[in-house]
């Protein structure tokens, strides 16, 4: 019984991490009806951002990482988390402005800046690798940037919105996801070498049965979800988010700036994913590479669907169910001859069963189609 409770706690902790990522999926789906496939990669960038922040902090406070004095450590951990969340929020904002928003409107400046810069940078790197001189390489990069900007300007200006944009947005999201992974994989960016976190937090040896990282991750997740629930239910912008997910057109008619709400939603969801990215990679102690976000991304997406996509409490519930189910399979699957390699399959099996019983997720409302 004691061991069971321990496994349950581990499952809840894993589930809370899934829930943090799933919240971003579900909020974005709520306001935009878009499955943001790049969300798992925001989690990955969060892990690297936290690593970078801890390196900067370590250089700044040399005693922080290498002494046994525990005093600066909790503060350092909080700073690293906040830095990663801020950077991820910024990334989410940039992704939305540069890749998704131009699909909905005729804006061309932001995508021209960011997509153009990415293509220009790649052109520059290729020119450098081809042994061109520095200045000719810079010229090539700038030329590629301007060419992309011109292309986007002409096409965006004469855009007609005849095509249903949902699939287009989905493919764009896949493109963003692949870009973040493969761009991170470049040797001059994050490189494909596995990275390891330094000890972020001086922790006392595990107290009793439950390890400290589990408690800390669970605690941070609860705090973050409380803050989120406060923002969504008690603030003006939260009310706007709920209004836009309920009916974007009506919300716009009521004077809500839907574009700003969508941008805020992206930043909020991405910050949560970044927090999960730092905590999972820092406390697991495993090395991570730019593809670390793929599997948690899919799992969290499944969790969001499980709870009813678009429904915020549903995402948290779905994440917890996924985490507990997975842990239970690993812990007790061998009793019924299920090897723990089936942990991924069980998560999806659960999803299929729940969708068969409740086609719009656990807490999702079945939409009645009116003609």
């Amino acid at each position, binding site marked *: 019984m004691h061991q069971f409770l321990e496994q349950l706690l581990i499952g809840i902790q894993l589930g809370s991490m899934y829930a943090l990522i799933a919240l971003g999926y579900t909020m974005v789906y709520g306001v935009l009806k878009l499955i943001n496939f790049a969300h798992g990669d925001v989690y990955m960038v969060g892990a690297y951002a936290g690593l970078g922040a801890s390196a900067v902090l370590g250089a700044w406070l040399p005693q922080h990482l290498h002494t046994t004095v525990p005093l600066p450590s909790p503060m350092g951990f909080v700073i690293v988390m906040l830095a990663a969340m801020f950077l991820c929020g910024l990334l989410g904002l940039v992704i939305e402005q540069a890749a998704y928003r131009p699909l909905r409107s005729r804006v061309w400046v932001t995508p021209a800046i960011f997509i153009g810069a990415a293509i220009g940078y790649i052109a520059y*790197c290729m020119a450098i690798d081809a042994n061109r001189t520095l200045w000719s390489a810079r010229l090539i990069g700038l030329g590629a940037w301007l060419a992309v900007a011109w292309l986007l300007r002409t096409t965006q200006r*004469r855009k007609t919105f005849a095509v249903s944009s949902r*699939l287009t947005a989905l493919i*764009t999201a896949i493109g963003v996801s692949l*870009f973040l992974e493969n*761009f991170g994989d470049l040797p001059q960016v994050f490189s494909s070498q596995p990275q390891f976190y330094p000890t972020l937090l001086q922790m006392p040896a595990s107290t009793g049965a439950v390890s400290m990282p589990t408690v800390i991750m669970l605690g941070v997740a609860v705090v973050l979800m409380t803050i989120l629930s406060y923002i969504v239910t008690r603030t003006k912008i939260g009310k706007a988010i709920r209004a836009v997910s309920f009916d974007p057109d009506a919300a716009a008619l009521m004077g809500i700036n839907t574009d700003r709400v969508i941008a805020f939603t992206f930043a909020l969801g991405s910050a949560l994913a970044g927090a999960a990215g730092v905590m999972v990679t820092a406390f697991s102690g495993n090395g991570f590479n730019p593809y670390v976000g793929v599997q948690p991304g899919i799992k969290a997406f499944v969790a969001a669907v499980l709870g009813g996509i678009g429904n915020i409490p549903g995402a948290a519930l779905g994440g917890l169910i996924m985490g507990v189910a997975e842990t239970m399979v690993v812990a007790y699957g061998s009793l019924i001859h299920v090897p723990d390699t089936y942990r991924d399959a069980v998560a999806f099996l659960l999803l*299929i069963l729940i969708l068969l019983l409740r086609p719009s997720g656990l807490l999702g409302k079945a939409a009645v189609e009116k003609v």
Partner: protein
Amino acid sequence: MVWSKVPLLLRRCAALGFVAAVLLVINRFVEAPDSNRYHENVIVFIGINIILAVALNIVNGFTGQFSLGHIGFFAVGAYVAAALGTYGHDRLFPWLPVDGSATSVGPAAFPIIFMMVASGLAAALIGLLVGLPSLRLRGDYLAIMTLGFAQIIQVVLLNLPVVDGATSFTGIERHGIFELTPHLTNFFWVYFVAAVVIWAAYGLRFSTHGLALMAVREDEIAAEAMGINTTKYKVIAFVVSAFFTGVAGALFGLYVSALTNDQFSFMQGINIVVMVVLGGLGSISGVTIAAVLLTGLPEMLRFTENYRLVILPLLLILLMLTRPQGIFGRDELSAGWFAKQFQAVRGWVRGGGSRLAGRRTR
């Protein structure tokens, strides 16, 4: 004309025979012993991807049901064919050499046809099992359901010791010798199947069944009101598509030297979806061209080394921004399409090169 007096079936057989003859001639060059193996490899994978894209297009393009799970059917087809080829050496095709150097043109074609049909049927059966419960879901829920099934298939295969799912399946050891999976796939079979699948897709699209599928895509409720059994047509589309995907899987399983689990990962499945959307949902010629481009382009960009993996997603994003309907939209490549493009270019030239100015004054 005399040609039109010939019975339709005979005409079709003659056309198919002609295609086969042409492919056989090309096959002589592509599969010649001194031909470039790398080029042959790329050409075969292009063909397999064409089959996959055209098959997925039946579900995602014609019927408007969004499936992310076809990679699972592909995996089923590949493993069934490879297992049949390996374990069937003794009982089914004892004349096949065990070192994998089998030929499959001419009278020796029986094994590969048998394995393709068997794989296709296996995949179609799985497709039916997946499709029956899933197709009552809509939109994104259907997508995630099919994705879930594909993941389950992948994990189940991972845990099948019969096909070495956890490592890689190259063959089995029997009577003290290691027997390789026969490598029966060649240029001819891949492109012949691709031709048949494209032909079948065209036939389906312009038949009454195809119209029913497209009615489901445009408006499910209206289609139902017109007396179309939407569930039946959705399941039919799903099963037909799964069958073709399974056949493509068989060609893949009998081609690669080792089947590994990560060849059937989520990202590989996404690749096929990208082909379909990029080519234009519902456009057979569009997805065919997209399959060629998306398989060939990474190989052509190989000189850029690891940058190509960054360039391709960027191009994808740019293309979605500049041409959201895909390369062809819903049009097909035909004389009429060329005429339309010609008119558009002529209008653009006559308008002084600026469509924008013309639109503003209107």
